[in-house]
């Protein structure tokens, strides 16, 4: 794909964007807002108020995202020597993604029987996850309007 220097194919980018959209929606649906604001009463959107369903949906979308991100990561690390680099915007967003993934995995582990974190650790993990997600949203919007790309290549620089 021309914008990402052949690291991502078009369908992979679409899957990536779709999984992020589902993660944002199912993440917001973890909060009791969709019922409060009548969204779940819109025909076809009753599921937005189903906490257990959205819990599962969030995990499934996260698994899809992790598959795509790790595929790209391996390709990036192998092709980096050919001059492809993360841009500043790319570094910021990758760092935020990494934070979200690590805290998300810790949260998922916490839900297993036999895995316990202290109350302070539990609350911190969730707040870091929420903060990093909000910051990633801001960074993504900024990158969209500033036409910031994840990757740069000496041969493609202006």
């Amino acid at each position: 794909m021309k914008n990402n220097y052949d690291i991502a194919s078009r369908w992979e980018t679409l899957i990536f964007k779709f999984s992020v959209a589902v993660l944002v929606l199912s993440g917001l649906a973890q909060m009791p807002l969709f019922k409060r604001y009548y969204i779940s009463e819109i025909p076809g959107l009753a599921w937005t108020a189903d906490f257990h369903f959205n819990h599962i949906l969030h995990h499934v979308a996260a698994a899809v995202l992790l598959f795509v991100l790790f595929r790209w990561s391996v390709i990036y690390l192998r092709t980096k020597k050919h001059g492809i680099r993360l841009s500043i915007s790319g570094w910021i967003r990758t760092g935020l993604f990494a934070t979200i993934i690590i805290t998300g995995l810790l949260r998922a582990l916490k839900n297993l029987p036999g895995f316990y974190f202290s109350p302070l650790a539990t609350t911190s993990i969730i707040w870091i996850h929420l903060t990093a997600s909000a910051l990633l949203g801001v960074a993504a919007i900024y990158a969209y309007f500033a036409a910031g790309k994840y990757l740069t290549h000496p041969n493609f620089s202006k």
Partner: protein
Amino acid sequence: MKQKKSFSGNISRRGFLGLAAAGLAGAMMPGTAGAARRGEEIATLLDIESCINCGQCVQACREVNGHKYPEPEKPFPEMFPARVKTEDWSEKRDISDRLTPYNWLYIQTSRGHYNGRDFEIHIPRRCLHCQNPPCANLCPWGAAVRETNGIVRINDRICLGGGKCRDVCPWLIPQRQTGVGMYLDLMPRFAGNGVMYKCDRCYDRIALGKIPACIEVCPMQLQTIGPRESILRQARELAQDLDGYIYGDVENGGTNTFYVSPVPFEVLSDNIVKGPGRPHLEYVENTMARSELLTAALITAPLAGAAAGLLSLKAKKKS
């Protein structure tokens, strides 16, 4: 069930034994305080046939935990949208026949007929402290947490009162008080609605090596607290002795509260008043059962993605 067993609230043989033991050792198994400090799971056993509905546990809970009760600011912020209802129990603090933010324990009575005999059994009801609690696992704000010693509690300093913990609790235990908590400092009209309250199994007393107030004051010594494995073993022995039944060992994947009764719990459940703040006694599937599968998917996905990346690079090299 053996016909010789008493189904009444009269003092039973075990009750007399309990009374005799009262004041000597309380109802704490040896090693409980140390186990709690080490972060081992602590559970309680309730021999409900011994309950005489004296209400001392309810009163003790109120006295010991009164300083944790909400003192809401009024008038409450106007809610948006208007259909969001406030919940105010601050003028009804004396209510003791259901769970409220000011009453974390109440006694439920089941009267009926079973196996050719009438029964009347009193059941102290509160949070069961699930082993894998959906309230703590699904709280989007990190306010509901599970401690390593098995206590599940809600941090009233950060709870926003959205009530998700109540919605996902199989027994709908947590109760909301509007007009208190962090939501007042954020967007009180648009998000949150107070703080959720429930039994915290006297976590502060446990930390000091004491036992929960309800257990300490019970004149019938019907509750016992101790390391989960020991308590579960004791519950099974008692159930066998009674030819009775256990509730809480497998419900919702396992809890840290075991009720033992000579009457099946579905029969008890059919004969109690149920509704808001008045939980049922029916069997509950493990609502977090899919967690292991979902977490396995999260661990497998990046490995599969990395493998796919390597394979595609290899294929590209070949071509």
